[in-house]
């Protein structure tokens, strides 16, 4: 393998540029504790930045959060391997924003009015069931853990590309150092740290993307040549590959896009970023501004074809770093690698904060210590954020990569199963807590089982319909069960649990800006 030869050299120039940016954001991460100064011994300050982030900060934060490092290496890797099918990321990040525009301001309003910090807090308030809240919280934590692990993978491939594999355990040691630093400033600064770092990270990602989409195709003879090269490569490769979708791929492509968009908005790292916004209009403006990141993601996805045209000798997640090293001078490669690594730090921090908020509010408080003071609450969250991150680190260092990838895939299917409780709950109090719980259990079981039967794959061939995203199949079953149970309980005249929210809580406050 000629790729192995390249990896035996440590790219010192790239590494120096990388180290400079890494040091810069480390300082920022600790300074962030004093930004918009407040008492970080309160969970809504540590874990939600005091709900004071305006349009611009929210844009950087959510952009840095939803478009992760793993996405930046995994999407082009999929496009490199199979072609058009990997572009489901485009419709996915298109349809996410109309949904975001409709749902998130309602969610923000009700959570602000009742001081909810997590989606599970909302489920608890809406349905009066701590078991349903627990289900929502566990799903969030379970889906987030492997996602954090994959952010580490994003960093690992960058370290490997810079030649750290040549040193004994070099890539692992670099990864551990980076993660300890991340854990420490997340502990001290909370959500303020990734919010501040996101400015640097996102600016760097845009520079990297703009340079890549101009420089690399120019080296390869233009976009026409890039698509032609990819088309030939897929024709030679055969199977379900090509620069257009193959027959039978359409349904899988569309359902994967829609299901992923619906799940994205339920992930703890998204809701944490959303609830940290300063007003519902901040979120509506962001629904218009965030698609800029989708443009960047679409262009990054095209790097999969550029890698084919450039005859990059790499596989999987190593494709993008290899293309960068091949196309750019070493100092700029270091800059791009820093952008990707910071692209891992921001979401990893927010994910661990989101998971920590869930554990504190919806597991620790109801089941371990009902009478926590504000300070105890924020301490539990801070410690949990450390535990979650080190758990993810152990995962990546000791278990095969396949494991984290499979679990993250299942995580998307699982996350989708809280859709009825949360999203229907934003519009109607009709569904009952126990019915939603039953639907959730059916969805989780069915989704996991179907995926397992396919060898941990995201899609399942449904007779007469086509190949469909398993998350959507499980969701349909989930909703049917929840609706049936609710209807039957209503017929039997069973008592309903209390709803702490009122219809007016979901609308914008009167006199609020805009």
């Amino acid at each position, binding site marked *: 393998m000629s790729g192995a030869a390249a990896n035996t050299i440590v790219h010192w120039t790239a590494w120096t540029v990388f180290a400079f940016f890494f040091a810069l954001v480390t300082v920022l991460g600790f300074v962030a504790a004093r930004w918009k100064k407040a008492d970080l011994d309160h969970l809504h300050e540590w874990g939600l930045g005091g709900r004071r982030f305006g349009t611009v900060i929210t844009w950087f934060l959510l952009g840095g959060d939803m478009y992760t490092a793993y996405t930046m290496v995994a999407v082009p890797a999929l496009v490199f391997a199979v072609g058009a099918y990997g572009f489901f990321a485009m419709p996915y990040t298109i349809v996410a924003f109309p949904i975001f525009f409709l749902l998130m301001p309602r969610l923000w309003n009700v959570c602000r009015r009742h001081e909810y910090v997590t989606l599970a807090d909302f489920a608890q308030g809406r349905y009066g069931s701590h078991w349903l809240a627990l289900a929502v919280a566990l799903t969030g934590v379970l889906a987030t853990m492997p996602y954090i692990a994959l952010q580490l993978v994003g960093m690992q491939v960058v370290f490997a590309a810079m030649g750290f594999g040549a040193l004994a355990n070099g890539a692992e040691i670099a990864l551990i150092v980076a993660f300890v630093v991340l854990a420490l400033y997340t502990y001290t600064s909370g959500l303020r740290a990734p919010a501040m770092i996101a400015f640097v990270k996102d600016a760097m990602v845009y520079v990297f993307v703009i340079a890549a989409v101009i420089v690399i195709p120019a080296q390869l003879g233009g976009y026409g040549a890039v698509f032609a090269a990819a088309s030939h490569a897929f024709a030679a490769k055969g199977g379900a590959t090509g620069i257009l*979708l193959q027959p039978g791929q359409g349904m899988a492509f569309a359902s994967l896009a829609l299901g992923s968009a619906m799940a994205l908005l339920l992930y703890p790292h998204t809701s944490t970023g959303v609830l940290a916004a300063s007003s519902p209009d901040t979120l509506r403006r962001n*629904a218009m501004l965030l698609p800029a990141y989708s443009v960047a993601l679409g262009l990054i996805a095209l790097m999969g074809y550029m890698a084919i045209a450039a005859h990059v000798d790499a596989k999987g997640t190593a494709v993008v770093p290899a293309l960068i090293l091949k196309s750019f001078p070493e100092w700029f490669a270091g800059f791009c690698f820093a952008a990707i690594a910071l692209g891992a730090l921001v979401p990893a921090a927010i994910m661990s904060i989101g998971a920590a908020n869930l554990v504190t509010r919806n597991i620790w408080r109801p089941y371990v210590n009902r009478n926590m003071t504000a300070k105890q609450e924020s301490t539990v969250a801070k410690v949990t954020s450390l535990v979650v991150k080190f758990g993810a680190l152990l995962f990546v260092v000791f278990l095969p990569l396949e494991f984290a990838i499979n679990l993250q895939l299942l995580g998307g299917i699982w996350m989708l199963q809280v859709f009825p409780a949360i999203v229907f709950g934003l519009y109607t109090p009709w569904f009952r807590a126990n019915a939603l719980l039953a639907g959730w259990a059916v969805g989780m079981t069915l989704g996991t089982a179907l995926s397992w039967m396919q060898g941990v794959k995201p899609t399942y061939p449904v007779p007469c319909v086509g190949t469909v995203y398993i998350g959507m199949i499980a969701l349909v079953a989930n909703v049917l069960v929840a609706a049936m149970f609710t209807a039957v309980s209503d017929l039997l005249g069973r008592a309903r649990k209390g709803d702490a929210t009122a219809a007016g809580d979901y609308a914008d406050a009167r006199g609020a800006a805009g």
Partner: protein
Amino acid sequence: MRRLLLLIPFVATLVVPFYNRAEPALLGFPFFYWYLFVWLFLLPPLIWLVHRGRRA
């Protein structure tokens, strides 16, 4: 009901046969690709229209 406008991007990007073809190409991009990019640019004004309608 301006909100119904928000259904357009779902139909336009999830009904794959609308755009799963190579021609007409634009600047070297097959139709499939530039069509999806164009939608990303149509999305903000569309949401803006709905947003403005809310306040009126």
